[in-house]
């Protein structure tokens, strides 16, 4: 990204690009654990969606279908709160690679 100087700033630093934070991939600072989704166990209660602080639960056609690892930080709240008899989300260890930089 080209570095802007104060001359390019909008008056009042108004940002018209609503929601452009989606370019920050928070998954690059994941904890070392990541959630894995097991579709067969899922009862579609949406608690994981509700309790994910990083908006990383993938929903398609009104169903939870998995995890968006671009944003998942590995906090484990989804797995902890998943109420299905056999957990539909489990946390697994993950080798942490050095992030290549989530902010562009």
């Amino acid at each position, binding site marked *: 990204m080209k570095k802007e100087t104060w001359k390019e700033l909008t008056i009042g630093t108004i940002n018209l690009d*609503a*929601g*452009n934070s*989606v370019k920050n991939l928070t998954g690059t600072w994941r904890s070392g654990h990541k959630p894995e989704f097991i579709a067969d166990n899922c009862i579609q209660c*949406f608690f994981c969606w509700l309790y994910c602080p990083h908006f990383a639960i993938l929903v398609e056609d009104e169903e939870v279908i998995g995890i*968006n690892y671009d944003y998942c930080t590995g906090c484990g709240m989804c797995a902890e709160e998943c109420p299905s008899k056999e957990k539909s989300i489990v*946390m697994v260890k993950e080798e942490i690679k050095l992030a290549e930089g989530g*902010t562009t």
Partner: protein
Amino acid sequence: MAKLKDLAKMEDRLVAGHGMCLGCGIPLIFKVVLRATEDPLIIANATGCLEVCTTIFPRTAWNVTWIHSAFENAASTIAGVEAMYKALKRKGKIPKDKTIKFLGTAGDGGTYDIGLQALSGTMERGHDIVYLCYDNNAYANTGGQRSSATPLGASASTSPAGTQSPGKLQWRKDLTKILAAHNVPYVAQACPSRWQDLYNKAKKAFEIEGPAFLNVLCLCPTEWKYEESKGIELAKIAVDSCVWPLYEVENGKYKVNYKPKEKKPILEWIKPQGRFRHLFKEENAWVLEEFQKKVDEEWEELNRLASL
């Protein structure tokens, strides 16, 4: 009754890519509250974790009109916007049938402490706004200084526990009651572990004409020092121990929205949190006793008010 599946279909007004901590409770609150109205929304947000983490230049995690106010004046900022909206409607520059909703928000520091004067004025003048305080019990964004919402006995950077002190020495300010004393149409206390209650309260707050105030307990694994995956369990304990009772005051009438079947001892709330660790030393036993006593007294008083 709202269903999560339906809420999930609505567009996110706060989106991914924000920089809040792992397990942070702030997005959990706003995910629900921002869905409680379908009208266009304008937000004024005081400095604090929410503001800092959602608007790291040149990015923003907001999908609605959002204004960064100073630390002390989120309420006045949103009051000014609401007054302008009314004036433009009077002049016919905004169509009569168009409705916009207004939300002021700040943390406990920005609400209980430095923003209280601005908030009080806004409530007294009767602006048609909602104000939400996300109470994470500390000045979290600046490293965990104590606020008047920090609980008794919590170790904070400006009330550290040590040989000379058991952490914060004062009982927390009861802000919700202070707001109720403004005799505004709607005041409520909520917690994200009971999302349906939080949703209903936010919906009511947006629908009611005149000022409404929501005080919402906000998980903060960073300052409370607990294992972040266990946040919702902890929030449930806050409610079930009556440390954070769920109630509302509608046109002066108190109503307790949830009575735990079995009131949990405050120890269940205290134990998982590192900020209270030192309270288990013998010399600090009085703090735990005092804590339980105060919670019991406040719960009793709340039920008395609700019975009037």
